[in-house]
């Protein structure tokens, strides 16, 4: 962290500042929790290596969209104070329950029998159509979980830098990529290193059923972590 602060201190280039802020966000405890969950989530498609890696990229793209849209809304005149305050206040509170709900769904503990919902669920099983979209959505939502520290880095440092420089709108994208770097790296390792070790891939495939449950537990666990942080 100190090394990053030093670099940040001496940075005269906005893109480098954005990159460093993103890295500092990525390794701070609370966004790290969302990133760990994301790694679990995207690696559940272990049977398709390219998919795992592409999911990692899409997750990061999702984060980039959120960070850019928020910066754009502020750029076009939303009250930065109220807007930023809202996310900093509620972001962390919403993410916990949401993670638990997603976890329960993954566990198949919650089944909703609305007419038409079964169709939706079965379509979600058809991974070809939904698989890529859910990684993107996960990135979109996880980026909204502003914690006290990441909130200051984003709203206090990155957004002002973005809205005051004329060509600054690319900065949230740089920031987002940096916050997603750990996920991209792990997605790469899981996709092309671990799964190519002899036998591991086959074993993982038979393990897959359990693997999904472990990921569901991970979601619920991280959800509880956020709830404890935000409410206790």
């Amino acid at each position, binding site marked *: 962290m100190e090394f990053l602060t030093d670099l940040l*201190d001496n940075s005269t280039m906005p893109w480098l500042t954005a990159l460093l802020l993103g890295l500092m966000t990525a390794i701070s405890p609370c966004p790290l929790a969302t990133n760990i969950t994301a790694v679990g989530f995207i690696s559940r498609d272990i049977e398709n290596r390219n998919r795992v890696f592409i999911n990692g990229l899409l997750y990061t793209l999702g984060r980039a969209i959120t960070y850019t849209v928020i910066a754009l809304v502020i750029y076009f005149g939303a009250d930065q*104070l*109220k807007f930023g*305050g809202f996310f900093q*206040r509620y972001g962390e509170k919403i993410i916990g329950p949401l993670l638990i709900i997603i976890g329960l769904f993954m566990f198949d503990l919650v089944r909703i029998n609305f007419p038409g919902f079964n169709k939706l669920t079965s379509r979600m099983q058809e991974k070809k159509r939904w698989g890529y979209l859910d990684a993107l959505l996960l990135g979109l939502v996880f980026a909204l979980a502003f914690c*006290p520290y990441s909130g200051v880095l984003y709203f206090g*440092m990155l957004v002002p*830098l973005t809205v005051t420089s004329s060509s600054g709108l690319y900065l949230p994208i740089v920031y987002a990529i940096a916050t997603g770097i750990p996920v991209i790296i792990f997605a790469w390792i899981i996709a092309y290193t671990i799964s190519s070790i002899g036998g591991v891939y086959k074993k993982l495939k038979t393990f897959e059923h359990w693997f999904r449950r472990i990921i569901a537990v991970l979601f619920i666990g991280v959800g509880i972590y956020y709830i404890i942080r935000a409410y206790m």
Partner: protein
Amino acid sequence: MIPFLGCTGQTTSKETATADINSDKIEAYYFHFTARCTTCRTVEAKAKEDLESLYPDQVKQGLITFQSLNLEEAPNKTLADKLGVSGQALLLVKGNQKINLTNEGFMYAVSKPEKFKEIIKEKVDGLLIR
């Protein structure tokens, strides 16, 4: 240098008139939400500690005060609105002068506490002269 752009962040750069605040006094405020983080607590603790060690006399006489306020508690909202704060913020207020030290706090309080102390000294000295 990171461009801090004056008083960036959760507060506006405009110096808002803060009526009924004693203009001889320097008031330091740390605004936060109920959920805290390690860095956040360190920023608060360091700021308080630095003020007490740099200006022991003024702190004793009540000329420099430090308050930590939760933004989720209704009574503090009024003051936060008046000061233009909506998120976590470390502020120095004297009369209608307002200095936002949030970014500096988050940058240095943990990794370079000495530098943070220097910045606090510089800003408070500036306010004492004026």
